[in-house]
């Protein structure tokens, strides 16, 4: 341990700790901007400068290691002046259109400017407006607001894609994709990890809010919403509720107050995915199809495979994602049953994901989804409608797609799809005594492996979240070092609960809590409290197969619930 003093407070931290980590242990707050836990630590923004004995000049707390007997001062006139000037210099090239900014009141730069009493025009405001790149289906980049922290670049690099990077030098420097080509024409998988890493309004999702409001007031349209498993675990954050609060009832109530709309539960098609995917896996094992089989719920992973591992496309389950299964059922089964012309049904999915915005545009999926809203966009609509979200009384999902199993709920966390599949497979092959919980595939580690006896067979499974981890796992499988039966991949670290469409979490919070674990816990709690915990026990699923789909992997199911993939070039 190393002993030091921060603002006179003695603190003892492990060797190799940074001043920032030691400050946290001493309950001293040091502002940061370019530092983001697990994503980037480069000391380039100069916000976290402090005085430290033995150092020449001010040092960056996020990178500077502590040493025995060191005395750190974080609140001297020199430090405060330096931080203020840093903010003012950033503001000099920042498009200060705060009132109409996507991040207004939720911006890390705005917060720092207020805290350090920065003069916003001290160094003038003369700068060229840079072009906005809004050609991507998912992400919009407004470089006039970029503060060059490069957190987005680091997030993309961590996903092993690096669709973006710094270009040019000095005042001409911008962040973007090479050759002034739009992000839309790069190997970007639309995961949106860049968006949730951005401290300011330089990156945001391509909004579908106006379209959805338009449909709600259109008398010819019947509007139905359905919400993905993880949205209920995070939406509350946008209204000041603690991270990890499950707001399912409030979410449903608020959506129903947006207008004359229905609200369904996407956990239902998570359950349906298990039925289709488990059947597909068993067929592959019996008839000798491509294995290991990979899950197909995550559109970020799908596009990643199409760009980087086209040889693995036959190994990916042909199941559509739960979003696309749901929309297909709504435009067929639901319309038939209720005598609605599918052209008049407007289907809105609420998802934690920016990649799902790209997914709805894929031709092979049949364009059944009319709009995909991120958790953030739903929060915006609820605020715009003047709904008192925190105090609203709970409501229940509408029938016939309201009830779902706990297995459907945990789809939103890494390992959840695997566990849901194992529950049903173990039951089908081993009877009611088969285990319900599979702790080895839970948790936020990037790669998890396990071996289970299911029925008489031994099944080797692996789970990866974050595309960097996925790539490592796939390379091991390709080299023959590892061998599995079934592999779950989610593009975002931690799974959908940490998706690119989830509420913005300030670095100060994100750096100091286990965001992924707290959000995932809300889903596992909801699973634990659900009386139905296996997908095939969901009565809605029974009804769907009896009424409409016949049986898993039937001809009809194949037509509506399955899809194809194709190789994509990188450039």
């Amino acid at each position: 341990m190393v002993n030091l003093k921060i603002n006179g407070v003695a603190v003892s931290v492990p060797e190799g700790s940074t001043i920032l980590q030691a400050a946290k242990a001493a309950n001293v707050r040091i502002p940061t901007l370019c530092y983001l836990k697990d994503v980037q630590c480069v000391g380039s923004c100069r916000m976290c400068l402090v005085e430290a004995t033995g150092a020449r000049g001010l040092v960056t707390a996020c990178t500077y290691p502590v040493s025995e007997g060191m005395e750190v001062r974080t609140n001297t006139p020199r430090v405060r002046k330096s931080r203020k000037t840093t903010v003012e210099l950033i503001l000099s090239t920042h498009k200060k259109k705060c009132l109409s900014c996507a991040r207004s009141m939720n911006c890390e730069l705005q917060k720092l400017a207020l805290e350090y009493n920065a003069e916003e025009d001290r160094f003038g405001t003369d700068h060229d407006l840079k072009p906005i790149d809004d050609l991507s289906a998912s992400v919009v980049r407004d470089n006039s607001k970029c503060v060059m922290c490069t957190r987005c670049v680091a997030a993309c690099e961590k996903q092993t894609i690096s669709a973006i990077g710094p270009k040019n030098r000095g005042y001409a420097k911008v962040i973007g994709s090479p050759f002034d080509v739009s992000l839309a024409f790069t190997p970007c998988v639309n995961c949106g990890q860049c968006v949730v890493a951005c401290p300011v309004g330089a990156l945001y999702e391509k909004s579908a809010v106006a379209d959805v409001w338009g449909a709600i007031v259109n008398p010819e349209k019947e509007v139905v919403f359905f919400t993905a498993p993880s949205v209920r675990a995070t939406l509350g954050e946008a209204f000041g509720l603690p991270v990890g609060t499950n707001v399912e009832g409030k979410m449903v109530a608020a959506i129903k107050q947006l207008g004359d709309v229905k609200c369904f539960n996407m956990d239902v098609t998570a359950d349906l995915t298990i039925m289709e995917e488990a059947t597909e896996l068993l067929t592959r094992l019996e008839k000798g199809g491509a294995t290991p089989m990979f899950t197909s719920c995550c559109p970020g992973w799908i596009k990643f495979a199409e760009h980087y591992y086209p040889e693995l496309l036959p190994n990916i389950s042909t199941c559509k994602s739960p979003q696309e299964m749901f929309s297909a059922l709504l435009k067929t089964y639901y319309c038939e049953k209720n005598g609605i012309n599918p052209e008049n049904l407007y289907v809105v999915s609420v998802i934690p994901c920016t990649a799902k915005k790209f997914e709805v545009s894929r031709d092979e999926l049949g364009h059944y989804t009319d709009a995909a809203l991120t958790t953030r966009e739903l929060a915006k609509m609820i605020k715009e409608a003047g709904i008192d979200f925190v105090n609203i009384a709970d409501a229940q999902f509408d029938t016939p797609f309201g009830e779902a199993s706990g297995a459907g709920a945990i789809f939103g966390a890494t390992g959840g799809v695997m566990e849901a599949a194992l529950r049903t497979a173990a039951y089908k092959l081993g009877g009611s005594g088969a285990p319900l919980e599979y702790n080895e595939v839970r948790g936020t580690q990037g790669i998890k492996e396990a071996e289970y006896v299911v029925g008489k067979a031994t099944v080797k499974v692996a789970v990866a979240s974050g595309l960097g981890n996925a790539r490592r796992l796939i390379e091991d499988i390709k080299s023959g070092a590892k061998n599995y039966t079934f592999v779950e991949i989610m593009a975002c670290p931690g799974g959908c609960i940490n998706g690119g469409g989830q509420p913005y979490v300030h670095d100060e919070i994100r750096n100091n809590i286990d965001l992924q674990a707290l959000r995932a816990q809300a889903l596992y709690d909801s699973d634990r409290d659900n009386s139905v915990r296996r997908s095939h026990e969901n009565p809605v699923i029974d009804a769907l197969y009896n009424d409409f789909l016949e049986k898993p992997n039937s001809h009809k199911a194949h037509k509506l619930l399955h899809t194809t993939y194709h190789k994509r070039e990188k450039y």
Partner: protein
Amino acid sequence: MSQTIFEGTREQMQALSDCIAAHRGQAGALMPVLHEAQNIYGYLPAEVQQTIAEGLNVPLAEVYGVATFYSQFSLSPKGKHQISVCLGTACYVKGSDKILEAVEKELRISCGDCTPDKKFSIESCRCVGACGLAPVMIIDGEVYGKLSPDDVAGILDKYIKD
């Protein structure tokens, strides 16, 4: 960046692949490969940057980032006659920005670009050690000093007729 169409020969491609193969797997391989690629092609066309990205297994964004960071790397082809106008302190004080403007106007291209017929390319440089002759311009290694913007057309004429 100018819109010149990339034309590479088989020999150039071979030299590039040899260079990539020699550096593959080495830490910090990108810089020497970019240097060599520029020696081979005279500049770094998009196609060449893609080949390097693929060959070294480095993201294209990184290749492009490095290529645009260092002013010694050029993303535009070089002309038969390479014009370099000094914008170092002494030349600048003596009005070399006006010299550069005159060259750009005369050839109808911007600094950093190449004429469509690939006859001329313009770039700026920082101090060539001929401050006594400021403002200075260099064409194919030949130094022209104590220039005024009016001299530019006459000097270029010599090369245009060439």
